[in-house]
């Protein structure tokens, strides 16, 4: 079984995007059983209708999709209300926070009410990670240390720095915070994924493509060709994502 832990739905303000039929067709072609849908930030900046679009997609295709509720923490109380609506009405399996596109720092205190809500409801928080200035692994580590009962998922291996200068920081984040997992989309260096699996834990890594920002087929190759055992790969392909997103009490 293959679960893609991050697939964007909708037409983004930032020029990328894909509609549901396109996502389903690619899943069929590539053998992906289930995707975790994430709303894009649309041209009108309003995330709530995009969360509804994801919720409708889950209702139409419950076997194919899980969905994250995306909120902008700068919206304060309105963001908290939207997060609650996501959990209570839309069946969201977690929160999605994007410090890069919503322009906040991953360890800013404006996140506290949202993280407290996630903690109360035992829902994971997915953070678009690895962006210098806003979601550096040290910032995610700082926030994850403040909320040890919240399960965080750091996108992009926690680091997307092609000089390799964040590899050390991303690893230290994982060592310091057992409540942080990483997903593999766009990750710099496959040996980082292999090392994390071998030395930090095979439960701590999830396959994700980040499609369409990254190429879904190419991102699958990172797992397919990885120097890992079949058992380890099965955990990355699906078991870890299902454990974090589906089976939390």
């Amino acid at each position, binding site marked *: 079984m293959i679960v893609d832990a991050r697939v964007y739905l909708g037409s983004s303000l930032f020029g990328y995007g894909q509609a549901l039929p396109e996502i389903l067709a690619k899943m069929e072609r590539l053998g992906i059983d289930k995707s975790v849908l994430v709303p894009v930030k649309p041209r009108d900046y309003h995330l709530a209708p995009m969360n509804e679009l994801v919720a409708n997609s889950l209702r139409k295709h419950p076997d194919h999709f899980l969905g994250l509720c995306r909120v902008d923490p700068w919206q304060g109380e309105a963001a908290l209300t939207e997060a609650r609506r996501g959990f209570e009405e839309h069946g969201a399996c977690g929160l999605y926070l994007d410090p890069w596109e919503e322009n906040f720092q991953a360890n800013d205190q404006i996140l506290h009410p949202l993280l407290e809500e996630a903690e109360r409801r035992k829902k994971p928080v997915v953070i678009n990670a690895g962006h*210098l200035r806003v979601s550096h692994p040290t910032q995610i580590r700082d926030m994850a240390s403040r909320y040890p009962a919240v399960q965080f998922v750091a996108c992009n291996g926690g680091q*997307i*720095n*092609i*000089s*390799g*200068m964040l590899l050390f920081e991303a690893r230290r984040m994982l060592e310091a915070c057992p409540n942080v997992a990483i997903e593999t989309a*766009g990750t*710099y*260096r*496959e*040996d*980082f994924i292999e090392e994390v699996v071998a030395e930090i834990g095979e439960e701590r890594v999830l396959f994700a493509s980040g499609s369409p920002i*990254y*190429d879904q*087929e*190419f*991102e699958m*190759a*990172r797992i397919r*060709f*990885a120097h890992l055992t079949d058992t380890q790969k099965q955990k990355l392909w699906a078991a870890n994502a299902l454990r974090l997103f589906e089976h939390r009490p």
Partner: protein
Amino acid sequence: MIIDSHTHVDRFGWYDPPETIIRLMDEAEVDKSIIMTYVDAPDVKGSIEFIAEAVQKHPSRLIGYARMNPRRGEEAQQLFRRAMEELGFKGLKLHPAGNRCHPARQETIDLISLATNYNAPVLFHCGDEEFTLPLQIAEAAHACPDATIILGHSGGYFHTKDAIRVAERYPNIVLETSGMPYPQVIREAVERVGASRVLYASDGPGCDPKIEVHKVKMAGLTTSDLEAVFYRNIKKILDRVTTGRGKQ
């Protein structure tokens, strides 16, 4: 045939002995790889000799580039001359994020000019960090029109548009595919700059050469363009290099 234009062998920073890249080359069916350290000479003593020894141990598989710190001035130039004339090196690698020497600084230009005297290519780390941005390296390409300037990683995660833009602007700029995660950027580079100025590379062993080969194959190129990217272009560049050791 496949020649990998950017891989690493090192024992000073990260530990990657030559056997690691050879194993991954075998898995990926890569015939030859250009190797370099993760550290600069002459800052790290013995780094040039380490690459020379690796090439000597695997002469049919490995080709050496000298990674240098231009800030070391005449000392760097002397060592680069020795690398080219006595140790069989074929090119220069510059990583300005490490040595904080801007691509357009005179010390960098002097070293590029020296490499150009041997017709040796200059491979820059070209990503998202200060001093490695495509527009910054383009200043060196402008100042040294006879140099062959290779943009390693083609601008990384966030600067691929700039990399293609400067390659369109300067005919002495060559794009290289390693690490950056977008197969469609390779296709766009070939369409806009021409297949003759795009090189396959992996940045292995950290980035897996097999996955990096797969990425290039996903770009939807013609067979002829694929051959150009996989080996013809770099072979042509290396064939022009003049060193004490003759042609590779």
